[in-house]
């Protein structure tokens, strides 16, 4: 295989031997050396720890086990991606960490402290965004700060800063329904960042976007993550996206959701969706995931019979 001419040789060194395995750039259960473009604050102390998390729902009188004994540690400054078929409880997991929902059993620790309620140290970007349509873009972004009683001057300054970070400064007085999908997504990102959370939780944020916009937002998210050093837990059903963005990819099983496998992604950054290494890594994960997707499809057919 010829080396990709677009890539710097330095970033290739660790992964030059593509013949060895389809899983180049991926090491199981091993923390790798820091790649080129990573935040400064990677540490081994877990920022977020899920201990024996289980969630059951009551559905028509019977109990449905949604999440089963999830054990997960997330390092400070890590970009963790969670993938799994629909119905595996990915979103539930984020709601739990955000404190919007309580686990049936188990404990969630953030900096060693148990999570009891929502807190602005963990901000969730919902799949549907949940931007407030009665507020302008700038008012949306400053909302969290307003709730924290931060002074108006400081709010304005930070709002401006974060809107610039997502390239929306000139749209500050627009209403959110006047913006395109990608712009709304960036408003949601700015709103979440403006409350300055340690942990950013993202629930399939780019699922509804066209490919070009999504590529662009991947680049921006990676850049912002590197600049701000936040811990990001990113849920998606798109394995390539997970490999494109994550330091680590956690694969969940279909109902009940369990951690099936964890993959360390040691590809150099910045990455691109169409890179061979990304595709190759994604394919390896996808093979594992396919089994779960089949299970979820089967369950769907069963339900419709």
């Amino acid at each position, binding site marked *: 295989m010829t080396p990709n001419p677009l890539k710097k040789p330095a970033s290739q060194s660790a992964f030059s031997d593509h013949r060895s395995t389809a899983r180049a750039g991926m090491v199981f259960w091993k923390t790798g050396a820091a790649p080129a473009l990573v935040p400064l604050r990677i540490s081994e102390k877990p920022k977020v720890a899920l201990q024996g998390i289980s969630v059951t729902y009551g559905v028509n009188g019977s109990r449905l086990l949604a999440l089963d004994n999830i054990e997960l540690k997330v390092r400070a400054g890590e970009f963790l991606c969670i993938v799994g078929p629909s119905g595996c409880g990915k979103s539930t997991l984020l709601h739990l960490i955000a404190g919007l929902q309580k686990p049936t059993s188990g404990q969630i620790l953030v900096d060693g402290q148990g999570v009891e309620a929502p807190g602005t140290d963990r901000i969730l970007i919902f799949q549907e965004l949940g*931007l407030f349509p*009665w507020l302008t873009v700038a008012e949306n972004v400053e*909302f969290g700060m307003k709730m924290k009683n931060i002074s108006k001057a400081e709010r304005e300054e930070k709002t401006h800063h974060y809107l610039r970070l997502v390239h929306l400064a000139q749209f500050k007085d627009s*209403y959110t329904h006047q913006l395109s999908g990608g712009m709304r997504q960036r408003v949601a990102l700015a*709103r979440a960042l403006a409350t300055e959370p340690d942990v950013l939780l993202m629930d399939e944020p780019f699922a509804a976007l066209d490919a070009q916009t999504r590529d662009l937002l991947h680049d921006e998210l990676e850049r912002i993550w590197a600049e701000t050093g936040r811990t990001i837990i990113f849920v998606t059903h798109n394995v390539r996206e997970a490999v494109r963005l994550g330091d680590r990819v956690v694969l969940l099983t279909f109902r009940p959701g369990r951690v099936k496998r964890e993959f360390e992604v040691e590809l150099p950054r910045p990455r691109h969706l169409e890179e061979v290494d990304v595709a190759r890594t994604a394919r390896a994960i996808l093979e594992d995931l396919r089994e779960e997707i089949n299970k979820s499809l089967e369950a769907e057919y069963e339900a419709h019979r």
Partner: protein
Amino acid sequence: MRRIGRQVIFYGILFGLWFVLAKLKIWPPYIFPTPWGVAESLGAGFQDHSFWIAIGVSMKRMLLGYGISVMLGMVLGLAVASNKFLEDTIGGLLVSLQSLPSICWLPLAVLWFGLTEKAILFVVVMGSLLSVTIAMEDGRKQMPKIYGMAGRNLGARGFKLFWYVLLPASLPFIVSGLKQGWAFAWRSLISGEMIFVSLGLGQLLMMGRDLNDMSQVIAVMILIIAIGYIVDGLVFKTVERRLQNKWGLAPAT
């Protein structure tokens, strides 16, 4: 354009019929008023300021009574919407009370408050409180849950969550209920004002009856319709449209 044309023709025929019947003098004018008599009454009423005073008095009562029921209704509606126990108890009571015409509260109000301002206010409040409460409850339930979650997620709690998130999020859903509440309040007010010398539009109506002055009765009725229409059709419609625009809910036209 065709709609307006039809309306012009319809009202033209109606008015012409009235004019012809009045001209034929089949019934005495205290039973069947003439168009020119009504026009005269309208003119005279505005000229001697009695209509203006009545409108002022009635509107003041309306604003006060309606204001009270919006405030109370908001609290009640939210309480009922957010608490299962209250919903099963008070919620059911409210729905059953709504079938009671508001004028039925009048005897009770007179016994409690006498022939006073308070009695009229009470009837107005009782007339609109229920529909405001039910509208508020519905609005809270129809409101997408995501806003509440997003608000809590961003650190809004308690009163702040209500004031900055839940209330604005449910506004487009409650505005039609507020409109209905206004219409009920307006009806209750006019009925309430009829029972004693209260200086409002309702009393002007009764005065017309007492004096066998059918022209005045019709003139005041036209006035009541006009005010109701202006508030309902213009003020509330505009507010509704503005809200829907701002919330991005407006249907594409």
